[in-house]
């Protein structure tokens, strides 16, 4: 003998026996959940990317060769690797300007499509003695001084199992790999300045030399400056430009401004996303209300029958709410799963397409947001169903029954 119906099983039976209505409701909730969870994950990832970018940009001002400002900005956000450099000793000249608290220089070299990697790498040479941008970050992963010929790799760099990278036909030891930042720094390797000439020499052996050998030991791509308290980065830039006619035509990049403009783009995108989610939610709610209310007449009779048999108003509301909870939960789980299939596997692609710092948030945040999305889905379905519950639970069941005939 098959088990008979139970009061708790009634909502499930009602859903099971109305597959089209149930599937429609679940689909609507699933679409809402995709938008809500997917949108929230994108927003959170972008936000984390931006925060990470802000943390990595310890400099207030970058002095770069004329016309290379955009390349330097791309380095900070999400661009392709580049090689550019001054051909003379600029750091000592710039250091004389008024308002500088800390100064260091970096050298940027773009590798070829390396054997180990699907894309070109950005090689960043920095001076561990004066650096205040990379070193604190490297220090979080590697507490020794970076030796000559050693590398620290960004998060997305493919490091061999033996802890090396092959670049320009030479194997370089990787002493540490950094956490993800969501910026192009993830596709970079960091070396000390003394390693740069070795790189240039190695490049000459396997391909086109990345820069003339005579510049290899002194090439500086960017001078990074932290301004003194009370000084504005633009004022310091003016001071630098006035120092020497040679410096009048250099380019200036203001990482704070890059962050601000990125933040503006991000906020614009988040606003659109919010509007999109809200509009979709309102539409979804309307569709669900329409589906629920279209079933009111059909269900008037069903609920009047239950009242005639002795069901309390609370029982009726409980049945409707439980149907909604099951629908909402099923739709929510499907929606979160569907959004996850898009957001997580294609994280890198999404980040690239957005041209914004994009960094996956931690598993705790993901699970938390999934939970919020599920609660949101369930509540949405419950809100839509309340309308039916209260219309059907009115005291004079006989009149409801007559209306349903």
């Amino acid at each position, binding site marked *: *003998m098959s*088990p*008979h*119906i*139970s*009061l708790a099983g*009634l909502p499930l*039976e*009602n859903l*099971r*026996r*109305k597959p089209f209505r149930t599937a429609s409701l679940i689909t609507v909730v699933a679409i809402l959940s995709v938008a809500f969870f997917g949108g929230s994950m994108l927003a959170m990832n972008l936000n984390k990317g931006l925060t990470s970018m802000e943390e990595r940009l310890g400099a207030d001002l970058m002095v770069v060769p004329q016309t290379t400002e955009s390349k330097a900005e791309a380095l900070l956000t999400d661009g392709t690797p580049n090689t550019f450099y001054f051909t003379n000793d600029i750091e000592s000249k710039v250091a004389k300007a008024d308002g500088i608290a800390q100064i260091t220089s970096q050298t940027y070299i773009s590798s070829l499509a390396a054997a180990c990697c699907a894309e070109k790498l950005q090689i960043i040479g920095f001076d561990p003695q004066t650096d205040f941008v990379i070193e604190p970050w490297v220090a979080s992963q590697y507490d020794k001084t970076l030796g000559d010929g050693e590398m620290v790799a960004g998060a997305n760099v493919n490091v061999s199992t033996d802890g090396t990278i092959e670049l320009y036909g030479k194997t370089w030891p990787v002493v540490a790999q950094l956490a993800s930042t969501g910026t192009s720094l993830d596709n970079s390797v960091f070396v000390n300045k003394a390693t740069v000439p070795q790189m240039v020499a190695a490049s000459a052996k396997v391909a086109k030399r990345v820069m003339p050998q005579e510049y290899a030991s002194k090439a500086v791509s960017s001078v990074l400056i932290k301004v003194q308290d009370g000084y504005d980065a633009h004022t310091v830039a003016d001071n630098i430009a006035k120092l020497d006619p040679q410096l009048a035509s250099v380019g200036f990049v203001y990482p704070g401004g890059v962050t601000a403009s990125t933040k503006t783009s991000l906020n614009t995108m988040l606003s659109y996303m919010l509007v999109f989610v809200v509009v979709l939610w309102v539409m979804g709610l309307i569709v669900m209300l329409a589906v629920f209310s279209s079933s009111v007449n059909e269900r008037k*009779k*069903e609920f*009047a*029958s*239950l*009242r*005639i*048999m*002795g*069901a*309390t*108003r*609370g*029982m009726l509301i409980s049945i409707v709410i439980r149907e909604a909870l099951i629908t909402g939960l099923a739709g929510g789980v499907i929606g979160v799963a569907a959004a996850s299939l898009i957001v997580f596997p294609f994280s890198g692609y999404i980040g690239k397409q957005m041209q914004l710092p994009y960094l996956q948030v931690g598993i705790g945040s993901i699970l938390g947001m999934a939970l919020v999305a599920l609660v949101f889905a369930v509540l949405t379905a419950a809100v839509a169903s309340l309308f039916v519950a209260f219309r059907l639970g009115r*005291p*004079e*069941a*006989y*009149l409801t*029954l007559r209306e349903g*005939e």
Partner: protein
Amino acid sequence: MLLEIKDLTREFIRRGVPFAAVDHVNLSMDAGEFIAIVGRSGNGKSTLLNMVSGLLRPTSGAVTIDGQSVADLDDKALSRLRNRTIGFVTQSQTLLPNLTALDNVILPALFFPDDSDGQAAGGPVESENENAGVKSAEPAETPADDPDMPDVIAPVRVSEPTAARPDALSTRAHALLADLQVDDLADSYPKELSGGEMRRVSIARALMNRPKLLIADEPTGDLDAESTLIVMRLLRSLADHGTAVLMVTHDADALPYADRVLTLDAGRLADRPSR
């Protein structure tokens, strides 16, 4: 006194004009009494039955069932009364479309599972029901001697909470369906049943909790002569075993089974000679 109706009135408004569908009706019923009410359509019969069961509120007057004033009961108490004391066979088809015939019959037993059902009608004597192979109370008098008479009238005692003895409910529901000769349709859904079959399943559902008062609104409305006979004998037998039966009917063949026949004309109740 199981049922007492005092000065019961229900007014409706039709095209802006109030009219009394039920007009100052008085009626008393004892346990085991079988009353039939006849009258033309629209004369307030269904309205009266629905007020008795608390599904419709009277404009004035009072209904007392088993010592409880229906108007004074809150939703839970009224629902419990409807579930445990009253069995209602509605005029229209009210089986739940999503449940099988068997589950439709069982459903009322699930609403207040912790209630003792010692209130159920039926004699203390129990005998084997040959059809369903279950214990059922044997009618005290002649009906069991009648080969056409279903012998399910006094149902199996289901004194344990539902969760503890789920099979007892199925067994009882099957027995009821068997005695109404629709047990072979137990696993069918209402849309697969004819009007007459649905009516018989509805009657089985109304009897599931062994009501003290069975209210039947046109119980033979969709039935052929043979099914009418089965149903009316069943109702008669229920009354013989202590269940009060209040029936509204247009069916002249059903009237001889009642102890009293009343007429409801323009909302007013009056006696009419019965069998």
